[in-house]
């Protein structure tokens, strides 16, 4: 899923300082799963903002709504009758949400309440970790199902750098060296020879380096 973190309250307060009537829109997709932008978090943000503004003596009127998804015109459409009732709209979806909203409602002001961080999964409740960098050409089968592009700090394709120590990456003792894990699994599986093979430079045209991407599937296009 796409993982995100809530922006600091002060940053959000600054964004909306000139407005008095706000709609906060959550999303039931990834950001609900990673507990950052679902209906519950919408409620918490609404209450926090109201407290802050009440304290300033400039009470804020806030309505709450959570859409099925914000990355789909079908659901984005659902606010068309109320969108004009607000001075500004805060989206708690990943970076896609506020963009889809802005495109659909060009006359309204939209603000992001979360920082979209990575594609990952939950290690346990409350802890998420990056797994994929969306490079557009998946190669994890060469590496025992582990992605060195997203998970090695230097995206190395030919083995661990000289900074790998005790299973940890040179950038931090809190970050696993993915190459340590790849090598160990290859050894356990008796496939170390795979790693002796030279892996040529990656073709990055399918990643963001090739420019903004689009996926067209003719069989679905109507």
């Amino acid at each position: 899923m796409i993982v995100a973190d809530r922006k600091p309250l002060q940053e959000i307060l600054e964004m909306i300082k000139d407005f008095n009537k706000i709609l906060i829109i959550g999303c039931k997709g990834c950001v609900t799963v990673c507990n950052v932008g679902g209906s519950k978090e919408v409620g918490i943000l609404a209450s926090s903002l109201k407290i802050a503004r009440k304290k300033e003596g400039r009470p804020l009127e806030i309505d709450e709504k959570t859409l099925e998804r914000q990355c789909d015109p079908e659901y984005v459409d659902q606010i068309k009758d109320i969108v004009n009732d607000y001075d500004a709209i805060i989206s708690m979806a990943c970076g896609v949400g506020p963009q889809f909203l802005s495109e659909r409602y060009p006359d309204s002001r939209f603000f992001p309440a979360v920082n979209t961080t990575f594609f990952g999964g939950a290690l346990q409740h409350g802890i998420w970790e990056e797994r994929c960098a969306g490079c557009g050409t998946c190669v994890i089968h060469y590496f025992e199902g582990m992605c060195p592009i997203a998970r090695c700090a230097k995206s190395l394709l030919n083995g661990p750098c000289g900074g790998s120590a005790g299973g940890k990456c040179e950038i931090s003792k809190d970050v696993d060296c993915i190459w340590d894990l790849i090598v160990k699994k290859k050894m356990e599986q008796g496939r170390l020879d795979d790693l002796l093979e030279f892996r040529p430079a990656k073709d990055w045209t399918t990643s963001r380096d090739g420019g903004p991407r689009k996926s067209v599937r003719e069989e679905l296009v109507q």
Partner: protein
Amino acid sequence: MRLSYPSNVKIIQVPCTGRVDILHLLRAIEDGADGVYVAGCLEGECHFIDGNLKARKRVQYVKKTLEEVGIEPERVEMFNLSAGEGPRFAEIAREMSERIKELGPSPLNVKKAA
């Protein structure tokens, strides 16, 4: 058993403090409470394993939120006591009342000149 505790404390009963949500605490402040605290079982004695530990973390979250918007985090607190400790319950209520009196009314209740 009748124990005297300050009448300014409004008690809301929940089956387990694990049921107390961040939003409950925030809403209390938002609606004008000068302080709000959670009285849970002793740590390690939760019937639902870790309800009181979850409550503590949520209280911490709310403290942080208040701090971010410039409100004294001490207005929100977590206490732990064993289920049968009536006197301790009353003591905590007095303690919290005292604390809030010292802090004064919530900034949300102070009328600002426009």
